[in-house]
């Protein structure tokens, strides 16, 4: 097999997977109607996807906020602008670190679990047996998990940012002695609701769709063996991370580029 044939084959393989992924997304979206009639399915998945990710997100947010407090202070104090610490912490979190780090942690905590769960259901013929019981796995298994991911990620990102701002406050004001009033007022003066907060929320929504999509698709598309499932789980984390970082670059360019 020559190099061109190999290149062509792998390119076609990628295209085929992309096509399957989009058809899969379409079927998932079409199956979404069931959740209106049976919100209980969604609540159960919100629990395992959202609630169980809460702790790691909150703890990470706290630490990231505290680190930002330290680093921001060290940089700013040289310019005599330590009062701007609130701005630095809040803008970094709301615009970038909140959505991005949350999405990365989400891929590791919830995304991999979703892939493994669905992949194992496939490997143990549970999905197949559902089909034979006249239950559509897209409606019963895929759609609720996908939607739970899409809903959870923006909420988790907001919690991450909020906890981070508090962490920055704790270090900046509590430990390093920045004025508390300045911390909040500088923050409020330069963080814009539409420009910064809403753009951050939009980012995390996009990431939510992408992360949840990759996770459930990899699970559903996994080779039904233990090796296949373990590979699919790894792929979920790697592909989600790459997709999130690339998308973040594009979205940042679109949102903040024209200044």
């Amino acid at each position, binding site marked *: 097999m020559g190099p061109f044939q190999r290149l062509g084959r792998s390119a076609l393989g990628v295209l085929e997977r992309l096509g399957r992924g989009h058809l899969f997304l379409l079927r998932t979206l079409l199956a979404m109607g069931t959740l209106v009639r049976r919100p209980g399915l969604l609540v159960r998945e919100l629990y395992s996807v959202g609630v169980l990710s809460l702790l790691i997100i909150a703890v990470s947010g706290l630490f990231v906020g505290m680190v930002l407090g330290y680093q921001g202070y060290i940089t700013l104090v040289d310019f005599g602008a330590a009062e701007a610490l609130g701005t630095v912490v809040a803008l970094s979190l709301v615009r970038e670190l909140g959505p991005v780090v949350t999405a990365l942690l989400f891929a590791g905590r919830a995304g991999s679990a979703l892939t493994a769960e669905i992949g194992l259901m496939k490997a143990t013929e*549970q999905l197949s*047996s559902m089909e034979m*019981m006249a*239950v559509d796995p897209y409606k*019963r298994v895929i759609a609720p998990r996908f939607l739970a991911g899409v809903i959870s990620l923006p909420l988790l990102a907001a919690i991450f940012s909020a906890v981070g701002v508090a962490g920055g406050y704790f270090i900046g004001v509590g430990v390093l002695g920045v004025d508390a009033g300045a911390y909040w007022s500088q923050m409020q003066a330069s963080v814009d609701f539409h420009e910064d907060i809403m753009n951050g929320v939009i980012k995390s929504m996009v990431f939510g769709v992408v992360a949840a999509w990759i996770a459930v698709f990899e699970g559903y598309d996994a080779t039904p063996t233990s090796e296949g499932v373990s590979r699919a789980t790894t792929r979920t984390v790697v592909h989600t991370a790459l997709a999130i970082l690339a998308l973040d670059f594009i979205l940042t360019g679109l949102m903040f580029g024209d200044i």
Partner: protein
Amino acid sequence: MGPSGTGKTTLLRLIGGQLRPDHGQVLVEGQDVHRLPRRELYRLRRRMGMLFQSGALLTDLNVFDNVAFPIRENTRLPEPLVRNLVLMKLEAVGLRGAVSLMPSELSGGMARRVALARAIALDPHLMMYDEPFTGLDPITMGVIVSLIRRLNDALGMTSIVVSHDVAEACSIADWVYLISEGRVVDAGPPEQLRREASDWSRQFLEGLPDGPVPFHYPAPDYLDDLMGGDTR
């Protein structure tokens, strides 16, 4: 019946509409399974039951909820009625006492009986069993064998049993198809098959190691292979 890898399970999946044939058609109750729109296919599947080799119980639900699953998903029966139905099905397979166990707490034979109770939960017209006898101890095997026959007669269904366990399958079958490499090679009631079968069928039914189905996987000449020293 047929040796491993001859397409028995594939056949069941074709009947259930989970696989699409390259050509030909599958008729169930007069309907061409693969031309049905999705909705109709799912409606047809409510009248089919399938027992998977692994049982395929939903691991996050206990025995009761597993058996109740198809009933709850496909009907709007009130919960007390669902409970009665589930207990009836479990009683039929002798596991009414195990309602609150999780699938991980069941032995292989029990899991298969629970899966059987689940498969008949919607009173199917057509039951399909994929290798129901493999990997069971003799007692459990006997239980399953008699269950399949009893349920078939009591519920008036059509049962398709895919198996390579000759004795067990023949003991309950009315009609046997022998399949090899994707083709039906012999068909008839078990006794007739035993009496006037072809060489191939005799080899399969009596479990002879060599015959029309060779013992050896196709390979280059043994001596050449040993002497050639051509390692790959």
